[in-house]
């Protein structure tokens, strides 16, 4: 690149400093808005994807009259006879509405004495020793549940209201480890028998059945066999979950994008109409042409000028977005993802800097800006120098 042309372009930007700064700041804010929304949704999406491997390979639900109903526990034995199945387990879980706080808790029944859970219990739960809780009604709660209970003066126990209206006192035995709020904030782990009582799930029935398959290649085949064995079931595989995670925000990301495109379109129309090519700029092009500059040289200069403004604004926008999302935790945008929930998890957005996303934002904004500036410059450069200066 010709360094003199670069100096000339920098000087030209400086001559119209006020206008370039105003356009640059609006452009940077638009880039920051788009990047913030996309980085936040990408960050949340990566959070669900990272724990996909810990989920069961297959979940079997029973459909009854179009709704999910309780499934017979003894189906576990038939499912375990399907070749390729490592284990099948009944699962009892559901929701409990705590009216005082207006929040939904997710109750999950767990066989705490199953050796398979020992390692996970040690890794995920703080201050918990199963030996001290034998034959007692206890629960392990997520960070959000603990906060809600404390706010309602339940420090050591909680009184659940049973389906028949009676009270059930359950002691607080431990909490999920810090940093797992996005996975466990609303969760209450209970012994299976207690979960059955609270959720009114009689012995012999379960909420759903989870299945582990040794060979990932065989999951689809096993799922088909389960469907054939029990045609009234809905079988969800890990591949389905991966697909579900993939489009977590696709439709809504599109919603943001359409809003952004509207804002961007208005910006460029404004740019073209009002400040794209002022009288002084046209005169400058006329003078350059009169001094013997060729049209491509004028266009190269304008490209360089607009490129510097757009690239600087893009960098500024990305700088703002990264700081806003990963340092300030995207206030405002995260609230959109939380909705009306009273039980908001205390979490930190996982840092995910997706270069392809940043590249996409670059391609969607910078060339458009440059085109919006180049077109009027090219028009001015094609007119006779004498006419332009007059």
């Amino acid at each position: 690149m010709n360094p003199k042309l670069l100096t000339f372009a920098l000087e030209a930007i400086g001559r119209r400093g006020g206008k370039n700064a105003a356009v640059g700041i609006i452009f940077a804010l638009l880039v920051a808005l788009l990047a913030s929304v996309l980085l936040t949704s990408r960050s949340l999406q990566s959070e669900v994807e990272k724990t996909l491997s810990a989920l069961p390979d297959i979940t079997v639900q029973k459909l009854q009259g179009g709704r999910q109903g309780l499934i017979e526990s003894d189906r576990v034995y038939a499912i375990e006879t399907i070749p390729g199945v490592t284990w099948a387990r009944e699962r009892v879980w559901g929701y409990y509405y705590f009216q005082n706080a207006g929040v939904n808790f997710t109750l999950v029944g767990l066989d705490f004495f199953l050796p398979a859970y020992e390692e996970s219990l040690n890794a995920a739960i703080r201050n918990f020793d199963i030996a001290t809780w034998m034959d007692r009604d206890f629960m392990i709660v997520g960070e959000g549940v603990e906060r809600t209970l404390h706010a309602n003066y339940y420090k050591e126990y909680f009184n659940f209201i049973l389906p028949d209206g009676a009270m059930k006192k359950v002691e607080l035995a431990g909490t999920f480890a810090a940093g797992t709020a996005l996975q466990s904030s609303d969760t209450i782990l209970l012994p299976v028998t207690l979960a059955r009582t609270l959720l009114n799930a009689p012995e012999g029935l379960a909420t759903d059945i989870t299945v582990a398959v040794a060979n990932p290649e065989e999951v689809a085949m096993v799922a088909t066999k389960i469907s054939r064995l029990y045609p009234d079931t809905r079988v969800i595989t890990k591949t389905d979950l991966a697909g579900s995670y993939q489009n977590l925000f696709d439709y809504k990301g599109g919603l943001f994008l359409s809003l952004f495109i509207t804002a961007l379109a208005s910006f460029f129309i404004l740019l073209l109409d009002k400040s794209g090519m002022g009288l002084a700029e046209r005169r400058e092009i006329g003078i350059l042409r009169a001094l013997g500059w060729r049209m491509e040289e004028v266009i190269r200069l304008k490209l360089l000028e607009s490129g510097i403004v757009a690239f600087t604004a893009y960098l500024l926008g990305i700088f703002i977005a990264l700081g806003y999302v990963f340092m300030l935790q995207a206030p405002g945008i995260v609230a959109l993802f939380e909705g009306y929930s009273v039980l908001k998890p205390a979490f930190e957005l996982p840092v995910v800097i997706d270069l392809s996303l940043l590249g996409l934002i670059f391609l969607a904004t910078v060339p458009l800006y440059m085109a919006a500036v180049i077109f009027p410059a090219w028009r001015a450069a094609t007119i006779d120098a004498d006419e332009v200066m007059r």
Partner: protein
Amino acid sequence: MNKPRLLAAFILILIASIMAQLVYLKLKASAQEETQPAKEAAVRLTGLPDLALSTEARFVRHRSLADISTILSEGGSLPEYFPSAHLYAVSPQAHASGVIRHEP
């Protein structure tokens, strides 16, 4: 300092700031990685998918396990009542036809 130099200095400072920011975020990402085993263990215990980010509606809280009836059981017109329903796409297997594997 004249304007071109000032502008060039601003661009260089901006690039340096982004570099510093990226280094900081990289360190932060490494620190966050340390909680990954606990997260996986929590998911392994419950076996339930999705984030506890929005708990207002069941079809949003456990959207991957929800079917179209779960959505409608909140009330035919209620789904769009929840702001989070505008943000989270309905799970592709919510419509049972794609999931129940009946073969002729």
